């Protein structure tokens, strides 16, 4: 989408639901944000005082343009998200966005494979829903710690997403990691296809390795500490290969979605 129009949005919180253990789903009235692309994010303000000071970046989890509704899905990771989890329906939230560049090529015919690690599924869900809406083929692979720490199957199904799920303890789906699922999927699939992934760095690194022999394009949504979210503070950079060289790029502006082959993984 074009970056025009309003940046600041005050959005009514319609519902705050605990979708899984420690995962909160916000349903917002947010006309100004519903035309965002999958993979873009917003910056949520937590409270009106100066602690916590910075906004928190959250991916757009789902947008219903017709009803002007936006969803955010987040996991309690620290003090900021713990405070956000206490927001109640009827409150107005203060959002900036949409920021960043989302997943590319979502309108392509070639199948898309979405690979999510835990809460990393948040932006992928939106991307999958868009492909589903356009009648384009995709797979949705998701790994989690345990059954209770993932949204119920019904949540995916009600959006026409058939999620293949594995858990560390085998309490839902097979026991194992989502990259095992990916390995299996790739065996049954021949190129061209595209992989879109979001999750912990170790998982993302493995996804890139698995895709390489097949020559599949991989796009990864990265996380980083952010201040401005807009490209101005140079705080959120991550290292990337540029030919032989390594350069820092801003996760907020050049990303958060990047070509997996260019991402530098080692510390």
């Amino acid at each position: 989408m074009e970056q025009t129009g309003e940046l600041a949005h005050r959005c009514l919180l319609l519902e705050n639901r605990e979708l899984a253990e420690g995962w909160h789903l916000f349903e917002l009235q947010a006309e100004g944000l519903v035309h965002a692309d999958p993979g873009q994010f917003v910056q949520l303000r937590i409270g009106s005082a100066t602690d916590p000071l910075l906004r928190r970046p959250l991916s757009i989890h789902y947008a219903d343009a017709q009803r002007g509704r936006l969803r955010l899905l987040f996991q309690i990771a620290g003090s900021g998200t713990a405070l956000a989890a206490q927001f109640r329906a009827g409150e107005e939230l203060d959002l900036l966005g949409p920021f960043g560049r989302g997943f590319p090529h979502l309108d392509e015919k070639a199948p898309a494979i979405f690979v999510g690690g835990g809460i990393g599924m948040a932006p992928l869900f939106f991307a999958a829903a868009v492909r589903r809406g356009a009648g384009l083929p995709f797979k949705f692979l998701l790994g989690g710690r345990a059954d209770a720490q993932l949204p119920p199957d019904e949540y995916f199904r009600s959006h026409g997403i058939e999620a293949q799920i594995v858990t560390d303890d085998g309490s839902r789906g097979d026991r194992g990691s989502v990259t095992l699922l990916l390995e299996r999927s790739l065996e049954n699939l021949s190129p061209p296809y595209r992989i879109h992934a979001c999750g912990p760095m170790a998982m993302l690194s493995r996804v890139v390795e698995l895709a390489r022999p097949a020559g599949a394009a991989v796009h990864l949504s990265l996380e980083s500490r952010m201040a401005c979210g807009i490209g101005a503070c140079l705080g959120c950079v991550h290292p990337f290969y540029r030919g032989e060289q390594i350069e820092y790029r801003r996760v907020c502006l050049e990303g958060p979605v990047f070509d997996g082959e260019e991402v530098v993984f080692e510390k």
Partner: protein
Amino acid sequence: MKNSAPLALDLAGIKMNSPLVAASGCYGYGFEYGTWVDLREWGAIALQGTTLHPREGNRPPRLAETPSGMLNAVGLQNPGIKHFLQEVRPRLGELGCPVIANIAGESVAEYRELAAILDGVDEVSAVEINISCPNVRLGGISFGRDPVAVGELVSAVRGTYRGPLIVKLSMEASDLVAVGRAAESAGADALSLINTLKGMVIDIAARRPFLGNLTGGLSGPAIRPVAVRAVWEMAVAVRIPLIGMGGIASAEDALQFILAGASAVAVGTANFIDPHIAREINSGLRRFLEQEGLDHYSELIGAARDCPESR
């Protein structure tokens, strides 16, 4: 300094519509925010720091949140002055308000060279020399600490740059007021203060400093009381105007600095929380002037010194 508009000023030769400056390093080259907000709310925009050669900056993580503040250790990532002249300069006219170039060198010679280059650049209304960046190790010499060294540096730059010259001070100075006086004597037209305070956060799980650079610069509301005090002390020590900054996030905050003696104020970190902060502060300042029945904000500069105890 006065002008018909209640917030307009001439700051050492920079014609500003408002005493609000976008603080260096917090506003990129202006374009990043310009996509979204009306930049004409700013009296001037201080661009991110520029060095002679390109710098890749410090390794991440570069940011850490702290109580009412944040640490940054960007490390002056920038494409260098050559790129600046070729790619940034031609677009500066779009910004619609005066531009202050912020420069940092690794030696007096580098500062001089940077200033000499900018002397011919019309798009730049003033040069701010950063003698204080806490996140860069400049071969051991820390310019900002010593009044004599600062005097020499400013003299050198003054010799090559004819426009308004702003010196941005470091709280690392052994004696802040002495450094400010030295800068004034050496020909500075204005002083900016304060830069970030050197700070650190330890990641207790990893048992190591959180930032890639180990230490970073503390900014935001947490440092405001220290910054107001610095402006208060400097205002009696020098005659050149002061640009006060450090944690400003509202018109009330800006007024604290103005009442303490700042002629202009800069906003850094607060942009990250509210990108429309300049508009907010300007209208808050206008409201305050109306309430108090004042024609121009300059009547407030240093007015807190009129209290009996401060004489």
